[in-house]
């Protein structure tokens, strides 16, 4: 009898443990499937940067995205930022282009923790990479309305972990970033809306918890599946 009980406990443990791990991966898979569903997207965004005293700066940019791993961000205003571009390509290749210098610069891993053009997002945050490719996931909490996942980076990162809250529709609601000292340093909140067949983050707000500075990115217009050429995701286009 005792042996039977032990066997039952062991079988249950063996079944439950991989299921738990699989569930976190499955959730992350579903998040990726929803957030990267369009073949490509072109979005016009408005960024509002707010400092701790409530002073605001407004910037406008265009984001082109193709698949899960190609992204180009180009500022269109104000004048001092116009033309500044960030390009993220497969295999962790990232470039930044500053029109004043006329040359592109590959982003070294030491500077991936730097904030891009005064926003609250670092080059690492802006990298085009699916959650699944970027993180290992562990399910921390699950209830009727949401899942809470602990994500740890598969590669060298400025963050020790990210706590990702996902709603029952498998859309991210909130991401909390912890530094190497395990202090919560940044929080991203997402507001997803549906357009046609696709969900997209209409508003993303990034808040630096130390400086109380925030960046609110709102999508002004969006186009999906227009057949964006690979040429857009090139140094050539970035410099134009």
């Amino acid at each position, binding site marked *: 009898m005792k042996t039977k009980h032990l066997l039952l406990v062991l079988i249950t443990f063996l079944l439950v443990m991989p299921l738990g791990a699989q569930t976190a991966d499955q959730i992350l898979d579903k998040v990726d499937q929803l957030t990267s569903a369009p073949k490509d997207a072109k979005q016009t965004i408005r960024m509002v940067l707010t400092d701790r005293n409530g002073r605001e700066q407004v910037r406008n940019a265009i984001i082109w995205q193709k698949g899960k791993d190609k992204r180009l961000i180009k500022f269109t205003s104000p004048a001092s930022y116009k033309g500044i571009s960030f390009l993220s390509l497969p295999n962790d290749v990232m470039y930044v282009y500053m029109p004043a210098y006329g*040359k592109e610069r*590959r982003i070294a891993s030491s500077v991936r923790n730097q904030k891009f053009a005064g926003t609250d997002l670092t080059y690492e945050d802006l990298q085009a990479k699916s959650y699944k490719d970027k993180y290992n996931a562990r399910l921390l909490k699950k209830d009727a309305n949401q899942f809470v996942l602990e994500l740890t980076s598969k590669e060298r990162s400025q963050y020790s972990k990210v706590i990702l809250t996902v709603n029952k529709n498998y859309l991210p609601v909130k991401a909390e970033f912890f530094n190497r000292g395990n202090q919560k340093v940044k929080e991203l909140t997402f507001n997803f809306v549906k357009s046609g067949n696709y969900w997209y983050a209409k508003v993303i707000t990034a808040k630096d918890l130390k400086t109380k500075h925030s960046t609110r990115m709102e999508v002004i217009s969006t186009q999906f599946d227009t057949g964006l050429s690979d*040429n857009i*995701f090139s140094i050539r286009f970035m410099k134009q």
Partner: protein
Amino acid sequence: MKRLAILLIMILTLTSIYGQDSARLAINGQLLTDERLLLKNDNPWAWNENRLDLKINQALPGDAKFYSQVWIRNIGLPQIGQMSDLYNKGIIDPINLEIRQAYVQVDNFVLNNLDLTIGRQIISWGTADKINPTDNLNPLDLEDVLDFGRRRGADALRLDYYLSNDWYIEAVAEPFYRPANLPIGMYADLLDPQQFIKLPEGLTMASFSQTLVMPGNTLSSQFVGGLKVKGFVAGFDFSLSYVYGRDYLPLFDTLEMQVLDAQGNVAVDANFYYPRHHILGADFAGNILGIGVWGEAAAFLPKDDIVMTTVLHTVDMTQFPPQPVTITQDSVLQQKGKPYVKYVLGADYTFPAGVYANFQFVHGFLHERFAGALNDYYLLRVEKSFFYDKLKIAPISGAFVVSDYKDLKNNYTLLYMPQIIYKPNQNTEITLSLGLFEGQGNDMFAALKDLDLLSFSIKYDF
């Protein structure tokens, strides 16, 4: 003023031609005020520049665009010396107009992924920071020697063929050669050729005249061209390049000295020219262990022997009657086909606290030539940004120059140029910087030692 009027007509014409497509016309620019005063000698103003940098970008039908960059400037302090000058606005308020760039770019020209750019343009080659030995297609703009690496536009035809995102080939042809422009204002003496003339012992220069021989007015004499292949291999960007060019700075061809009297006074007459050379270049950029690294080298191979001929006309007083004597000496500065190499190695790193450090080692500065005359430069900048780039402080910024390691105390220059940059709003940048110089020897920057300065500039982008 006439040129300014022509420019305005051009802009208006362009705007009206494409008026129906005005959404594709973008006019941007920058207003700059740059003021410097010396810290010694009762603080005279040493530099006054007010610049309107106007950029026009017009998308044209098809995959084409027109781009121009024009500087309209008031530079220097008015040189008013006579009452009659007061009748001339050009003297009281001198305006200088410079078309830095004006070109048409056609993408996918004839072939897919082939871009044609034709007109005045600045072609930036090299991976190093500002000091690029492989960048030899645009004349040096040495007007402000503290603005390292500034170049003027060249009238060129450029083809860029993109084999992939990582590989491209660039070919450049320039039918007209243009020389470098030399430093002005308080920096005007830095490259004055007279200081490089070494007279035989006992002789004193009483007068100096010079002749500058420009390349002949033919395509073969004027032509400058280059070819570059750029790629990405094993995590590193790299390029290989070749330029058939000319030195942008003049070089002594002959130096003729005529002894005038028994006291040893001589009249010196110098001839200058711009030697031809082949330039082989290579550069790379990437990162190792999280540190950004780059390197760049250029081998300059003179097309002909570079020889300076010194001729001394004197009188042999030991003869009676005294006999005129001519002594001729040829000094080979660089042999044909034997290269001298300039190179740069650099690294940058951002420390966890957000402190950014950038270091470069430069062997051979932009104006230096020939194997024995290349100095070493150790450049370092450390900066930190605060309040989301609103404030940037660079407490360490400058260079240490060594022109002779064996006699360092007499052959060095230290340039210390700390900076504070403040952005009160997104489009405005205010910079306050110091320039403290100390040096000994013949290095160009050593001559700055009496020109310590405080600099203040405001930029406004629109």
